């Protein structure tokens, strides 16, 4: 019983010592930026050779499964062969989780759409909005019959992006991070965009990279 007593007692003493302590879990800005960069490069199909080195605090991005230590000498042949065949699980300890089936699906969908969007980014028909979405900039040069297709692609892409930002927040059990994730992405989309692409500045004015 004495031991039980001591727990709240200790807590009280610590609380008094520490005064008013607020514990905040801060938005992992660097990790989010790294995660966004990886996803954005993937979605824009930027070649890996152009990828910038990752910061140390960054999220661990989809890594090759890391093999655990080799089988010991005492392992029978059968099991040893099987161990080589079945890779042990990859270790993951990212600061920001971006590896979930939902996120992977969304990324695959965005990747698939990228070649269709690219010519319209290049022509300036569409550009990166300052809110992390794709925005129609000027459809005048797109043949009339193709405009609804462009509009559909943009709507689908934005729907995917909305889902992506929401799912990343959700995957990290922080739905309240969605806004910050969106802001991070909005910045990174522009940073990673190839030259010639259009983007909106903070005031919503169009600029070309």
């Amino acid at each position, binding site marked *: 019983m004495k031991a039980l007593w001591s727990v709240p007692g200790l807590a009280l003493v610590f609380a008094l010592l520490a005064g008013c302590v607020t514990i905040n879990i801060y938005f992992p800005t660097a990790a989010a930026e790294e995660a966004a960069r990886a996803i954005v490069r993937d979605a824009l199909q930027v070649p890996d050779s152009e990828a910038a080195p990752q910061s140390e605090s960054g999220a661990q991005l989809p890594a090759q499964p890391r093999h655990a230590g080799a089988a010991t000498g005492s392992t*029978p042949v059968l099991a040893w062969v099987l161990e080589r065949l079945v890779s042990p699980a990859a270790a993951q300890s990212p600061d920001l989780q971006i590896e979930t089936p939902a996120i992977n699906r969304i990324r695959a969908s965005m990747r698939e759409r990228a070649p269709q969007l690219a010519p319209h980014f290049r022509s300036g028909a569409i550009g990166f909005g300052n809110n992390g979405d794709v925005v129609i900039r000027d*459809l005048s040069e797109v043949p009339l019959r193709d405009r609804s297709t462009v509009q559909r692609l943009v709507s689908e892409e934005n729907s995917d992006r909305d889902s992506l930002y929401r799912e990343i927040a959700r995957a990290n059990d922080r739905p309240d991070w969605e806004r910050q994730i969106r802001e991070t992405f909005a910045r990174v989309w522009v940073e990673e965009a190839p030259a010639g692409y259009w983007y909106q500045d903070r005031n919503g004015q169009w600029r070309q990279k």
Partner: protein
Amino acid sequence: MHARRGAPGGIAAAAGLVFFLLAGSVMASEAASAGGGIQLDLQIESLLREDLDARGLSTRVQWTREGLSLEIRAERVELPAPIGTLRRLRVECGDLRLGRTEVRCEAARLWGDAGDLDLRGARVRLVWGRESGQLTLAGAWPGWFGASGDVRVHRDPARGWDVRADLDGIDLAALAASPRLPMELPVHLGQGRADVALRWRERGRSEGTLRVHDLAFSDDLGLQAGEELDARLWVAGDANGWDVEAAVTAGVVFVDPWFVDLDAEGPVVLEARGLVADADNGSARTDLLSLDYGAAAALQGQDLAFAPGRGLEGRVQAEIAALGVIYDTLLSPWLVGTPLGELDVAGHLAGEIELQDSMPRYMRAEWSGVEAQDRRGRFGLSGARGGLDWSDTVPGGPGRIEVDAAHLYGLPFDAFSAQVRARPQGLELLEATEIPILDGGLRVGAFSLQQTETGPDVQFQGGIRAISLEPLTEVLGWPRFSGQVAGMIPRVRLEDGDLNVDGRLLVQVFDGEVVLRDVYIHDLFGYAPELGLSTQIQRLDLELVTRAFDFGRIQGRLSGHVNDLVMVDWSPVHMDLELMTPMDAPGRRRISQRAVENITELGGGIQAAASSIFLRFFENFSYRRLGFRCELRGDVCTASGVADRPDDGFVLVQGGGLPQIQVIGYNRRVDWPELINRLATIQAGEGPVVQ
């Protein structure tokens, strides 16, 4: 002055000027004595009226043997918009005839410069009844905006103005670029020609026809644009009401996000009868309004009225003969990104809406032959028909919903019908029904859907009438096994977009029982639908299990649980699994050599304590206990068995009797997708790799 009311101000002012000068010349000529040629010059520095400012006026009247001629000049005349400033205005009449009752000039000519438009000797016929007060001006159109034709302006003091114009080939791009247009167009006109036939009467019935050919327009961003458009507009009526027929008959239009190919869909025709519009307060009403969208849809509105403060009121009937066309062109661009954004649709819908304050007050709809198939294969229904009515204040009358067949992720629903009633904010089921699923079904005892301030509120009570697992597993593409699933569902809740199923579902399978509870579904139609549940598993017969999965042969029972199973996109990403030989009444326990090999195969890093050569001497082994625990987090399963060993291994199969076999795992971190792949490989019949 009276004549100016209702007539365009510029015309009235110009006419006033002409009257004034004519009157002056008539008086001057009458005052002159007859005989040889007389010339009278009248110079006026300026002439000011409320809507007229003329400077440098001069009138010259010549009276010769040939007759009377008149010339009026003005250096500058300011007239109200849209005429504006006229410079070097000159009116010449070489054959002025002054009768007792009328003044007539059959071949007057006009010169003037209004900046963008000018007159260069345009021929005009002019007749003025001195007693009747009637005035007629007629002439050929001076070629402005590329058009040709005739214009006639007539004014009768009793009947007011009467204007006729027949113009062909108006260059719409030039007209749109003209600063004289009273409003700024929201779009640029690239090209297009128009023909106009107009008869406008100040008092009496007027009529006008406008035909537009090959029109192209676009706004700055190309979000509203049209090409190769042909259209016609017919307007007829008077102050008591107008009849309007407007049709766009050919071409393509894109109005973000909609694209309509009129050549493919047929013309869009709008007709209004008895249209009365009040420009002052922006209100309008019409006795009858109809809108046809090719052969696909037709709308009819009766007694529609619009007023800025009160919104739209009236009754609209709709007949949609081709739901597919309407979905493809009008609905799907709007539904992109939602679960209903990628459908193949067909069917027929008829309905009626009563509007008040632009809001529906009453609706009735009947539909038949409705097909809707999701292109991503998530859901579909066919042969849907029914009828429903809805009011915003009281529950509607009994309606019905009937479906011939439907599916959800491949789970088939057979024909069912339901008696339902629309409520102001939702829908409720009037009597219990059952949706057949294979040999069983989903019993729906009560169902209601209510839109609340916090989102939709779903009430559901029902259950599952035993469905055999054999056909179920077959249609879902799972390994086939027999058994059945049944259960009670006392309640279904919708919270934060999650569908929570209260109650327990009992799956009777492999001679044992699996109880499902805490079932929820998140984002059912999203990229990665999430299904969560927990199960209690009791006394599965392993012999039936291994036979179903073609896994070798294991005799014995298996009990355990799966807690907090979360499946995303139908693959588990989280669970705490435990399956063990039950402590009480474990029964006969034998495991075949092939099953041992398969277990070995499944979990890489598992060590069979007996060598593979030794194993081959025996077909079966008896065991004391077997079991598997897995804490799945993401793709990683942290595995353990019935017991741990000092060498960090864990026992999956603990042998009993002789020859004794132990199956020991060493790899505690197992890659789950790989494990499933291997299970699939074993099932596909490929034997284990034995060296």
